[in-house]
């Protein structure tokens, strides 16, 4: 249950500045809301990166035609992206924001889909078969305090016509899905990077509002399919927390083990894809070869290779199979040997080292300001592991090391992932022999209703903090369900750190940040 402090819009900016000065340097989450009669609003979850104190603030505005809230994008860099998202979904304009474009939807989209009064009919927004026009001009709103409504003050060009602009994506082998970069080049050097996302925006959050709680579970696997277990774990945890349901020890063990297996899977894929992006196809195949063994183990238990549908409210879908523990142990031993091969063939290779060391450096301050949790943050020296910050499941009972590197470059980002594989194996080895007997699922009522209130739960996903926010009005469907994307901070940071590098470095940086687009777009 969250305790939210409402701030008056007049003192909003000052409050936010004060909070930042008080050490709240990590904007964990920014949630747009439509409370119908009570107006539109935004919930901010702030965290102190040193003490891990969390604070929840909210701001409301009753105006619906042109709601305006002062920006915080100059206080926390990530807010620039988050505010664009809120604008896209709720039409809230952020006064003072430098680039108020839609983030996910086409720029000719009609309406704001997450508002409760949105009309989804096909006649308003049909499938258009012509591409959207590139929007070179953006709106910027003046932040003048005395005015009632901030006015449009300036037109700014994203990319100038006299620049050599190339377009990478949305269908491009190195964008890991459907992300689109518009690059302004000078020779091979990037002068400006403009990232477009939304090519796989499926409106999951809106769909969840009309689904029962068990039905919402299925979507989490499809957000970031490489941390399917963790995502689902987070949502189950959030719902269980709201219901006041305790899961059995056996379930905790299974969930923790599965989360770590999934993490290994994701990190192996990250290594493979990074190798492929840099032209080392053979290393890519080695990574995949070993990943297949892991998938076999997971499939035997969960029935799925990628989309596993394993966690359910109150437990897991099915009990682990008898041979599970033995197979996992065999795999873990095998994988440790394989890791050396990765280092030999790819990581220590002089070509790779030259291409990744010192490339795309993200400083610790920027990492926190952008909120790039996960391996990317840890490669920049920020101890941001949710498993340590806000332990859940069994993570306060097992012993493991939080891998921290300080270089902040592409090389360190890869190293963090590879070393985390070892840590994950270490966690699994502590648990696998001690799984207690018990039920694999606590019985729940057929229809699940959550008590009124707001709930937030977070897990350490494969590439950062994955959070789930639920606002319940006591019904069997959530009033608002928001997922904290792990990838959005990453691409926000990417836009910044890519500048000044070469085209080839852009690919390296993209691969090392390890984003999964369906997770960004939701």
């Amino acid at each position, binding site marked *: 249950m969250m305790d939210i402090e409402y701030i008056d819009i007049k003192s909003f900016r000052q409050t936010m500045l004060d909070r930042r000065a008080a050490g709240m340097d990590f904007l964990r989450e920014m949630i747009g809301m439509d409370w119908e009669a009570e107006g539109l609003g935004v919930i901010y979850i702030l965290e102190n990166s040193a003490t891990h104190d969390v604070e929840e603030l909210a701001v409301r505005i009753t105006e619906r035609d042109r709601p305006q809230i002062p920006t915080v994008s100059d206080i926390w860099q990530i807010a620039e992206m988050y505010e664009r998202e809120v604008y896209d979904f709720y039409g809230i304009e952020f006064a003072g924001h430098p680039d108020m474009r839609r983030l996910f939807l086409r720029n000719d989209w009609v309406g704001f889909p997450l508002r409760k009064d949105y009309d989804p009919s096909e006649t308003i927004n049909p499938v258009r078969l012509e591409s959207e026009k590139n929007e070179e001009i953006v709106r910027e709103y003046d932040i003048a305090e005395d005015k009632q409504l901030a006015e449009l003050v300036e037109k700014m060009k994203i990319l100038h016509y006299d620049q050599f602009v190339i377009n990478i994506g949305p269908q491009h082998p190195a964008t890991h899905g459907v992300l689109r970069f518009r690059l302004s080049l000078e020779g091979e050097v990037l002068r400006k990077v403009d990232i477009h996302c939304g090519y796989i925006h499926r409106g999951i959050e809106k769909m969840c509002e009309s689904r029962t709680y068990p039905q919402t579970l299925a979507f989490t696997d499809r957000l970031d399919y490489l941390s399917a277990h963790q995502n689902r774990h987070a949502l189950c945890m959030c719902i269980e927390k709201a219901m006041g349901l305790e899961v059995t020890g056996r379930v905790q063990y299974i969930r923790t083990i599965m989360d770590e297996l999934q993490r290994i899977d994701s990190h192996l894929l990250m290594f493979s894809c990074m190798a492929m992006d840099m032209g080392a196809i053979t290393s890519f195949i080695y990574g995949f070869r070993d990943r297949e063994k892991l998938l076999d183990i997971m499939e035997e238990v969960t*029935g799925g290779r990628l989309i596993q549908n394993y966690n*359910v409210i109150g437990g897991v879908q099915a009990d682990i199979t008898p041979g599970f523990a033995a197979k996992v142990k065999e795999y873990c031993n095998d994988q440790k040997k394989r890791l050396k091969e990765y280092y030999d063939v790819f990581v220590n290779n*002089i070509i790779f080292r030259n291409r990744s060391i010192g490339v795309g450096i993200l400083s610790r301050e920027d990492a926190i300001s952008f909120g790039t949790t996960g391996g990317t943050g840890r490669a920049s020296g920020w101890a941001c592991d949710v498993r340590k910050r806000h332990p859940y499941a069994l993570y306060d009972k097992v012993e493991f090391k939080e891998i921290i590197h300080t270089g902040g470059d592409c090389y360190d980002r890869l190293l963090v992932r590879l070393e985390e594989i070892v840590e994950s194996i270490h966690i699994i080895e502590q648990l696998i022999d001690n799984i207690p007997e018990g039920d694999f699922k606590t019985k729940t009522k057929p229809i699940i209703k959550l008590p009124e209130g707001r709930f937030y739960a977070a897990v350490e996903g494969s590439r950062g903090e994955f959070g789930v926010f639920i606002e319940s009005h006591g019904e069997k469907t959530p009033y608002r369900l928001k997922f904290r994307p792990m990838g959005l901070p990453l691409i926000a940071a990417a836009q910044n750190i890519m500048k000044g590098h070469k085209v080839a470095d852009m690919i390296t940086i993209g691969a090392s940040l390890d984003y999964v687009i369906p997770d960004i777009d939701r």
Partner: protein
Amino acid sequence: MTMGFLDNTYIGNILTAVKSLLTGLGVTLREFFTRKVTERYPENRKTQHISERHRAMLRMPHDEEGNNKCIACGLCQQACPNGTISITTRTVTDEESGKSKKVLAEYHYDLGACMFCQLCVNACPKGAIEFTNEFENAVFDRKKLIMKLNR
């Protein structure tokens, strides 16, 4: 990877580089001669192992007389998050007791939209439906993916 006094010199750089490249070549050479991991589908169709729990298609098991366990309660249809299942029922009157009850007329299932979340199977009170691991389902016609599960 240190070369002692040659560190960061012109020659030292060349030597470290060559050493790292040779290590890499060694790994691939070893793989060149190891046994390949490829599984020969479809040659191994008879012997290949697919996890029992793998979900590839929904099925309604029938006994020898062609009866199924479905009682047409519609819970699966309700549980389905995206309307993959549609059930039509008809009412039959039991001649002895005179009571009328709903029975299943047609059980339609759209394999092309199913997301294999298992909510329908979980919801079914009679265990009338289950997932199978028969994955060879590719067809040429979209209509073929909408299946009638009951006989």
